[in-house]
């Protein structure tokens, strides 16, 4: 289950993807993203960092099939993605998407039950995911009774149960404090290693991207385009202690060198 190095085989590709939001009443069209090219390798952990409003979330939604690009191609596992979410993709959103009317356990079981798995299979996989994410003591609780970090874990559990091959995370830790974020980052790494899935993480936090990823794409201000894609070269078995490594400072330094100017541009919008 654990591979030392992400293979070079391609899992998903974006080719010349552009997104232009059409005219809203009284406004000109918004060129939100692109053109963007991206080749996601099988099993890698890829982060996209950029200033607010640069279109990173749009990129994620296009890759997921939640939005259609205005131009360009999107491929996942050899098939074109156009406006429908393909099988095998899991998404964790920035907002709390836990269902307040279901217990934590039922939340996690939601997707698998809908797919018609047997009760035994559901129980096995959900118990596993719930335990893996440290939610076992809270399995019978309802999300509104839990903290923000716990609620995000519920959403991750719900995604994990379906064993997706590509996991998309849209600033999932945005609402959390800095220390919780670091710990949650470690959780995501554990998750990644365990599932051997390909992970795409959207974040505005440079340190998070630098710590977690095999590769980091620095995105320009709107319309977002990749300025540089940095290979971090980290070992697969990493945790948050790599922030002490000199290489970490180098990577974050390079990212900021790329992004500082872009962030200023974004602020001016």
């Amino acid at each position: 289950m654990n591979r030392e190095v992400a293979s070079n085989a391609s899992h998903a590709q974006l080719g010349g993807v552009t997104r232009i939001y059409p005219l809203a009443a009284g406004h000109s069209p918004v060129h939100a993203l692109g053109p963007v090219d991206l080749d996601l390798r099988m099993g890698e952990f890829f982060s996209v960092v950029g200033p607010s409003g640069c279109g990173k979330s749009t990129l994620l939604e296009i890759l997921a099939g939640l939005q259609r690009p205005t131009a360009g191609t999107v491929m996942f596992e050899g098939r074109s993605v156009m406006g429908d979410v393909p099988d095998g993709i899991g998404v964790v959103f920035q907002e709390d998407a836990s269902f307040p009317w279901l217990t934590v356990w039922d939340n996690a079981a939601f997707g698998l039950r809908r797919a018609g798995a047997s009760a035994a299979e559901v129980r096995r996989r959900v118990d596993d995911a719930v335990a893996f994410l440290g939610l076992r003591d809270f399995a019978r609780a309802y999300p509104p009774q839990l903290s923000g970090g716990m609620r995000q874990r519920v959403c991750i559990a719900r995604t994990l149960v379906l064993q997706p091959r590509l996991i998309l995370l849209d600033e999932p830790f945005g609402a959390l404090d800095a220390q919780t974020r670091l710990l949650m980052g470690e959780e995501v790494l554990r998750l990644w290693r365990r599932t051997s899935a390909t992970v795409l993480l959207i974040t505005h936090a440079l340190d998070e991207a630098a710590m977690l990823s095999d590769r980091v794409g620095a995105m320009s201000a709107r319309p977002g385009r990749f300025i540089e894609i940095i290979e971090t070269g980290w070992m697969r078995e990493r945790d948050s202690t790599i922030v002490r490594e000199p290489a970490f400072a180098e990577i974050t330094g390079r990212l900021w060198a790329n992004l500082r100017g872009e962030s200023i541009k974004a602020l001016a919008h």
Partner: protein
Amino acid sequence: MTRVGRIRLVVIIAAIGALEVACRTGLIDRRIVIAPSDMAASLAGILASGEINSDIVQTLGVIAAAVVLSVIFGFALGLLIHALPRVREVLDPLFATYYAVPIFIFYPVLIAIFGLSLVPILLIGVATAMVAMTIATLNGLDRVPRVLTKVARVHRMGRLATALRLQLPAAAPYLFTGVKLSVSYGFIAVIASEFILAPAGLGRDIADAYADFNNPRMYALMLFLLIVATFVNMVLHAWDLRWAERRGREPS
């Protein structure tokens, strides 16, 4: 019971007790208000004799019918309008004003059209209660977090599944508030109708007892209605509290 709850109970009992004493000692004229114990005794007698059973059935039946119709049609209307934003914009002032005007004033008109029967009562009940349900439905559907629709698509759910398994449960607390309001308004409209003019029913009974100077009977019936209405409202309120706790929001 909490300390506040105990104090409240004491306050209520003390108030009833004070009324009892005031009536018994003649401080309050018996031709105006009779003692609570006499009210209760009279009610017990009337209920035992079974003479108002048909009225109970009629009144509560019409209320129930009005509420059920209001909830169903109010919800359906809310669903429809929510799907048509421009229509909703246009209707917005109507909804804002609906409960500001005395809709009930139309009851005599309905009697003139449909005659003196249960139909005008049912109609005015529905007219009063339905819009509250519609407004609550619109409110509830508004408050379904937009991220849930995205989750539905990630799970590749169709429109019907999304509506039934995500939107409906997400909106449920607000829908329940609508039901609560419909019950309240239904009670008020139906009883007011029976009071003013109706072929039969508990409200009519009270009006008749008043006209006959029959205080024991009148107060007994009033007591009955107040107990039933309070009981129903308390049950609904308790449910609302429980749901709200689970959802981590304030009950309305």
